């Protein structure tokens, strides 16, 4: 069998797989549909180049395979052809760069009205808090971290008192409202990723990183950890519920603030001391 066949089959197989693949992205549920468009554009440009160049290679492999009475052409270079190809590649690359740079710029520019959500990552789980009525998150310190204070909020910081502490690992978001995800980690690197939102960023101990998106489809989504973090990495899931204004408001009313929790804790502890005294 002629070896050209195998190189052809690879091109044919790739194209067919791409057309008929049942495995592809889930529907986008945020404002980052532009990322999908950039992928699609790159598939057209890159895929086109791949098909054209590889088909030409296959043609050469068939057409110029060895014949005893033929002599290869002696042509060490062709400056004009090289210039054209270099220019074409440069233009192609620039065409891919332009939309990419524009959307990246949007990605790193957080809208002013974005709601801040503080996400704390640890081996292996997620914890959320919201700024509360004063609109400001309380400052934190790693030495304060314990089971009752997973963020390590400073107890004497007035801004921290009204922080809304979400119990459990599911966070609710209001549909069509931009959110700024603030990311922290207490141990190793993590990454808060919901495939349907398309966006992600590492959580790095010692600093607060962020990104933003605007959910635009109500529903329940799964949070994955997308930065390798040890044995529990594959099971480090959480949840997001995107709901409309009314449902969101009633959900947020049910949540407890940091001072609520501290007070509760105090009652518990007092009870325990009393029990111990008896």
């Amino acid at each position, binding site marked *: 069998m002629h070896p050209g066949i195998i190189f052809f089959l690879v091109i044919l197989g790739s194209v067919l797989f791409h057309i008929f693949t049942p495995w592809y992205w889930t529907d986008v549920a945020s404002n980052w549909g532009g990322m999908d468009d950039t992928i699609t554009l790159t598939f057209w440009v890159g895929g086109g180049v791949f098909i054209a160049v590889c088909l030409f290679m296959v043609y050469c492999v068939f057409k110029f395979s060895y014949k005893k009475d033929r002599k290869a052409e*002696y042509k060490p270079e062709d400056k004009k052809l090289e210039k054209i*190809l270099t220019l074409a590649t440069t233009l192609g690359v620039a065409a891919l760069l332009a939309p990419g740079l524009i959307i990246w710029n949007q990605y790193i520019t957080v809208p002013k009205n974005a709601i801040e959500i503080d996400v704390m990552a640890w081996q292996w789980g997620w914890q959320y808090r919201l700024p509360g009525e004063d609109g400001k998150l309380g400052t934190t310190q790693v030495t304060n971290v314990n089971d009752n204070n997973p963020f390590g909020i400073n107890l004497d910081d007035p801004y921290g008192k009204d922080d809304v502490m979400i119990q459990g690992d599911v966070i609710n978001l209001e549909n069509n409202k931009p959110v700024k995800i603030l990311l922290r980690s207490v141990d190793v690197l993590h990454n808060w990723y919901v495939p349907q939102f398309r966006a992600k960023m590492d959580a790095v101990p010692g600093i607060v990183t962020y990104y933003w998106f605007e959910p635009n489809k109500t529903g329940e989504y799964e949070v994955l950890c997308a930065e390798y973090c040890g044995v529990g990495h594959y099971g480090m899931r959480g949840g997001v519920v995107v709901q409309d204004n009314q449902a969101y408001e009633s959900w947020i009313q049910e949540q407890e603030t940091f001072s609520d929790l501290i007070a509760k804790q105090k009652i518990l502890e007092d009870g325990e001391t009393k029990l111990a005294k008896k």
Partner: protein
Amino acid sequence: MKETKLYEEKVVDAHEEHHEQSFIRKYIFSEDHKTIAKQFLITGIFWAIIGGAFSFLFRIQLGFPNVDLTSLSPIIGNWLTPQGKIDPEVYLALITMHGTIMVFFVLTAGLSGTFLNFLIPLQLGARDMASGFLNMFSYWFFFLSSVIMLTSIFVEGGPASGGWTVYPPLSALPQAVSGSGLGMTLWLVSMSFFVVSALLGALNYITTVINLRTEGMTFFRMPLTIWAFLITAILGVLSFPVLLSAALLLIMDRTFGTSFYLSDIYIAGEALSNQGGSAILFQHLFWFLGHPEVYIVILPSLGIASEVIATCSRKPIFGYKAMVYSLIGIGILSFVVWAHHMFISGMNPFLGSVFTILTLIIAVPSAIKSFNYIATLWRGNIIFTPAMLFSIGLVSFFISGGVTGLFLGNSVIDINLHDTYFVVAHFHIVMGSASFFGLFSGVYHWFPKMFGRMMNRNLGYVHFWFTFIGAYLVFFPLHYIGIAGFPRRYYSFTNFEAGKIESFMDLNVFVTIAAGITFAAQFIFLFNFFYSIYRGRKASQNPWKSNTLEWTTPVNPGHGNWPGKIPKVERWAYDYSKPGAKEDFIPQNVPYSKTPESNLPEDEHH
């Protein structure tokens, strides 16, 4: 030039005085570049088998998570859970070691160590490397590094399991993952010796290329293999020391309580005292090596492909100077794109745009190289040796992997695809498969020069068919799992809500079976390789009718390579099918005065 000659004569004299060296000096502590090259090759093959076997084990976990491996327990006994599954911690150790082994021990040491050592003196017309002594040390530091890395697999807590990129804090804290105990310490020690080996080798390669070219071998008469090797060595010298410093700082953090990479950590119920370090600093240092490293891995293969494609197309390589400038361009650019591995690491977001632009520029010299390979085939007279098939396969991988590079280099697309299987697919094609294909191509092509015998051609074809189709079947579908958002380094993909979990399972089964067949096919190569060393058909002096100098040595070149004087170089390496010439090749040592029938007015330029 004069000094070079003095040196050469000295070597010849010394060589003639005591012809037979002791077994130990000849085969073990050898200073002969050809023997050292074979040592690197055999050690690299050993590591490739281990690295490949590890990948097959974790592919079993991904494709058949419920299979009972108890029957394998005599070999991998304590790596299994009581149910006979691969233990989750072992799984992580396997992926970490697979990456470390393949990137560093096989495709850096195995590939560069073999072909840079073997071909630089032979193709340049040198008796040996500039310093045979340091060259010997380069191998033995690699050997030491290998022994330590191998030992680490069997220690308490298992080998390093923080991923081959060993990002802290995971790699810094034994509390975070069990492999970050003794296993990680040994990893760091092993890699430190590895860097020493790489530096000794690279300094030798550079010195040899600059100083020991034979008479007439100007820079622009060097074969493209040598150009690729020279750039590879320069990249190594400039980038490996940075890995060493990253490793040393990590050792300090782990052992001496410093805080280069650590800050504000609460782990295992305890707040650590480390303050002010930056985990991102490590990533900058690591990728400052890591990105040039992927070119250290691929450039030798591209060099080999240039040589093999020109020889087997019986045609001059198209655009020789463009190829050289592309190599230099790729080399320079490789130092200013490292942060494209870190778009979403939490570094300053503005850097994303800068590194996107710089990264996509690399597409231009890379595309020039691909075009020129194919333009070399155009109107050639192509002989499909196994080496040639592997080289064309390399071009195919370099194009398809380059195209997916356009996705990942673009920060906007990388946001979604980062740390998913798309990345795994991309680098296994463009860096893994392409450079493995260069390695295979080189072995098939220069085997006659290494061992004086030919490898079996038909077995070579079978090996190629299985490996080429197999690699595409394994890696191509993985792109699509990545687009669906599946993260890499997951032990299991059960209970997944994003996407249709059932059908993804089918795909994982398919990929695992393809990987198994591809891995098994490598034993065809191993058999062919070892069998041919002893029983292969005897080679002629110049079996591929090639122009380069190594084919002017005797079939089995001795110490010093040429028994008499070193040939003088009269022309460039690519006078194939020159109009008017009697044969379709004119070796580099044939003077123009002997070929009046084919001389061209522009020949002076070569």
